[in-house]
């Protein structure tokens, strides 16, 4: 029987959280998504792009600020019986045995005791946990724990399985085994599920597992593009068409946001101090510049290559590359990272020269750094309270983001010796404390 109702529909979903000052923090906007039977849909994006938030809306763990979510045509209000979730850090109850953890969802449904037992054992069997029924989570390896997570989700016979970065807390080998096992079960139709939504920040994982990939952008979270993956399963990572798709997604994700073209070439004093800055250490910046400057890249690197070379996930690599771009040490376009002249000069300089170059770029291209330096210069005491800058930043962002941004700029400023900070009394100053 072919059913025409989609398993899941999201229309114009929007989610915002209230901020303490009454304004709201927009995390998701204009979310449209449809899941049909037999599909694995991937939500791919960096942290902060709202993909996990969307997953929690679908799971009924929180409510959208606007828009509609429908499961089998019915509005979602609260956790639906046919939707189950697998968590990133497993979320097993440490005081329950494997069997009890798996049975928990059925207990909540108040099924007869015998049914609970039969179905739990079947799920444990299916996912390859035979013999571990009486073990406690602490006795299991990470991979085995996540298998319990899968069994616990499958035992309730959900139509939709939600997976929140289920492999990201595992080591590379274990993750690959679990992925393969899952795909085998899925292909053979042995799992009682009809559709899957997978949240991930791993591009290769998305291409390996999904039929469709929705690429998410940040600030606020939204869908940048939708990519159909029609490669036949099982897929081969070394297949040229696989590589091509990975490359294409890299290009997609490094595309400059439209409608914000002035960000690159112009700088007005006082403008732009309100942009959030990523937490990237100067060591990472220097390290990436050195790597790109050296052979075989010689100043111009393909992002997928460098990601696999350095064993970095996009969540780690992108902030570094973007910071280099912000500081005009590199250009990021079309999935390539190309060092500028100054970036090359930095890579080949000695420590003192590097600090000089970095200082120049920091004060020229990071308005917040320039602003703090100017305030310190102008004051007779050459010092200023941290709260002063936090207050200014909070006009643009949440308290937490303001604190992080200030920490980020401080890291770079310390490296460049632009200004100093004393954590004890929360003061910025020009001199280094003795």
């Amino acid at each position, binding site marked *: 029987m072919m059913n025409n109702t989609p398993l899941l529909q999201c229309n114009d979903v929007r989610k915002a959280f209230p901020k303490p000052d009454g304004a709201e923090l927009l995390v998701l906007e204009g979310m449209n998504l449809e899941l049909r039977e037999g599909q694995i849909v991937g939500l791919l994006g960096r942290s902060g792009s709202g993909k996990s938030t969307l997953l929690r809306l679908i799971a009924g763990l929180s409510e959208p600020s606007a828009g509609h979510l429908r499961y089998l045509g019915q509005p979602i209000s*609260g956790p639906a019986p046919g939707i189950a979730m697998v968590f990133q850090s497993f979320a097993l*109850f440490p005081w329950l045995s494997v069997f009890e953890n798996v049975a*928990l969802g059925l207990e*909540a449904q108040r099924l007869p005791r015998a049914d609970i037992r039969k179905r739990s054992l079947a799920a444990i069997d299916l996912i390859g946990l035979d013999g571990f029924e009486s073990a406690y989570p602490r006795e299991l390896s990470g991979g085995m724990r996540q298998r319990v997570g899968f069994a616990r989700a499958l035992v309730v016979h959900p139509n939709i399985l939600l997976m929140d970065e289920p492999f990201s807390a595992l080591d590379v080998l274990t993750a690959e085994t679990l992925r393969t096992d899952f795909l085998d079960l899925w292909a053979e139709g042995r799992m009682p599920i009809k559709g899957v939504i997978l949240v991930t920040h791993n591009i290769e994982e998305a291409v390996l597992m999904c039929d469709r990939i929705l690429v998410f952008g940040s600030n606020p979270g939204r869908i940048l593009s939708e990519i159909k993956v029609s490669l036949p399963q099982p897929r081969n990572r070394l297949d040229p068409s696989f590589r091509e798709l990975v490359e294409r997604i890299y290009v997609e994700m490094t595309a400059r946001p439209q409608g914000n073209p002035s960000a690159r070439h112009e700088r007005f004093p006082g403008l732009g101090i309100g942009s959030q800055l990523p937490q990237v250490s100067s060591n990472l910046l220097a390290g990436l510049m050195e790597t790109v400057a050296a052979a075989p890249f010689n100043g111009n690197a393909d992002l997928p290559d460098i990601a696999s070379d350095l064993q970095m996930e996009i969540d780690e690599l992108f902030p570094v590359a973007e910071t280099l771009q912000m500081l005009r040490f590199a250009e990021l376009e079309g999935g390539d990272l190309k060092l500028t002249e100054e970036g090359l000069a930095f890579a080949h300089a000695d420590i003192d020269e590097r600090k000089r170059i970095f200082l120049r770029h920091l004060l020229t291209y990071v308005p917040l750094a320039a602003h703090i330096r100017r305030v310190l210069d102008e004051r007779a005491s050459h010092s200023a309270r941290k709260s002063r800058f936090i207050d200014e930043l909070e006009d643009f962002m949440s308290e937490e983001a303001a604190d992080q941004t200030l920490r980020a700029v401080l890291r770079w400023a310390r490296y460049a010796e632009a200004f100093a900070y004393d954590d004890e009394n929360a003061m910025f100053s020009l001199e280094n404390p003795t």
Partner: protein
Amino acid sequence: MNRFEPFVFLRDLASRWDVLAFIVVIGLIAFLGETSRGLFAPLSALDITPLSLDPIHLPEYAARTTFRMLAGLALSLVFTLTYATWAAKSERAGKLLVPILDILQSVPILGFISITVVFFMSLAPGRVLGAEFAAIFAIFTSQAWNMAFSFYQSLRTVPLELMEAAESFRLSPWMRFWQLEVPFGMPALIWNMMMSMSGGWFFVVASESISVGHTTVALPGVGSYIALAIAQKNLHAIGWAIGTMLVVILLYDQLLFRPLVAWVDRFRVEQEPGVVVPSSWALTMMRRSRLIQAATVAFHSIVLWTSRAVKRTDKPTLDAAASPRRSHDLLWVLLIVAAVVLGLWHIVAVLIKNTPLVEALQVCGLATLTMLRVFILIALASLVWVPIGVWVGMRPRAAQIVQPIAQFMAAFPANLLFPIAVYGIVTWKLNPDIYLSPLMILGTQWYILFNVIAGASAIPAEMRYVAANFRVTGWLWWRKVALPAILPFYVTGAITASGGSWNAAIVAELATWGDTQVQARGLGSYIAEATTAGDFHRIVLGIGTMSLFVVVINRLFWRPLYYYAERKYRLT
């Protein structure tokens, strides 16, 4: 070893909620005191089988004391599971309930006894039962508060993913409580139960041998036995009592707490490698026994059965943005206003009308004396126990020996040292203001030792190797390695010790041996005297002043120090 974290729940220095809570609690005490006065006369005669100092009765007395302790513990558990849950689940109620708990914690335990004994005895007039209630309630007040705090804090820190898992698998709130929240809070709760038990023993004399005005009750038990031994100057009996206590505390430890600690170990969410798994022969035995197994299965079935009986509502509960209902808000505000007005009224009626300003100032002076004593004693105890604690903490073998001894010492009632103190002071004509003071810290100094040991054993081996490698020794080692590393732990211990010492002042500032009485000037002896005289105005005034001092000292001194130590010296 676990650490007791005193302040994690309240970050701000003081809020209007603290003031409200103070008024409500002290008002309630004033109200009870006032009411008790009316009930006083008809209950003054109460006959109980006379106690005997013959050691043959000690097993029976010990059993009775044990039963009271268990009853107090059970009551505390019920209180914890309800009060703390309410405070944690309702944003609105929590704002007042948490400060109230903080104030209750600062009210001296003997204060509760003197105020409530008459009320409880009126419940069962002319019978021992009323006095039993009073004693159990007194034990309850020495156990409940820190347990409730610990559970409240656990409820607020359940990992989000576990909450989400419970939610997405559609556990009902009832099922979530028993399957997730209670197990999660269990390790900290058990640890606090052990601490509570020591507190209960420290005040065992006061809670069993109650003497308020003309009401004198001596319930059969180890505490009353000690009281009688003191009254009759019987050193042999004191020795027997110490022996009995040792045995009972040991049995408690082996049969109740050790199995609990070993059992609850699996409830821990974070699993650090290399930590020794606690073991208990009693637990192993229980697990293997069919009877116990059947009981566990039965209990599990009850939890599941009740889970089935209670319905779940299909509504996301994790979203904090649920809209507040206006009518409830109004009702709540009215309730608080009423409580505060009533509280204020009673405080005015009892205290201000009946207390001349001179007396109030005098009491503040006495409180200052006691405060001075507490601070000096903590400083002295630190000088002794910090070096010893560090030495022990660096040697796991020694720590294993020292810990149970210290645990027993923490439960050791100050009354047992009265003979030595009184004899010494009288014989050598010593100044009681100075020489009675050590009794105050007798039971509480051990918290400094516990925590310092925990801190020293938590110093990473690498840090110690570095110090050895660069030959950092002597005073430099203490200044740069040991003291900073243990500071957060030490502050926690000092806070517990300070709070406990205030509480102990009532027992320690007035010592008797037979008909000889030695008294130190201070707020503790003031309250003790007022209690003996049955003067409720003075009792309430004394208790109110003591809570005020304790709360203010906590807020102005200990809490800032705690945060400073946590921020700067916590090794993560």
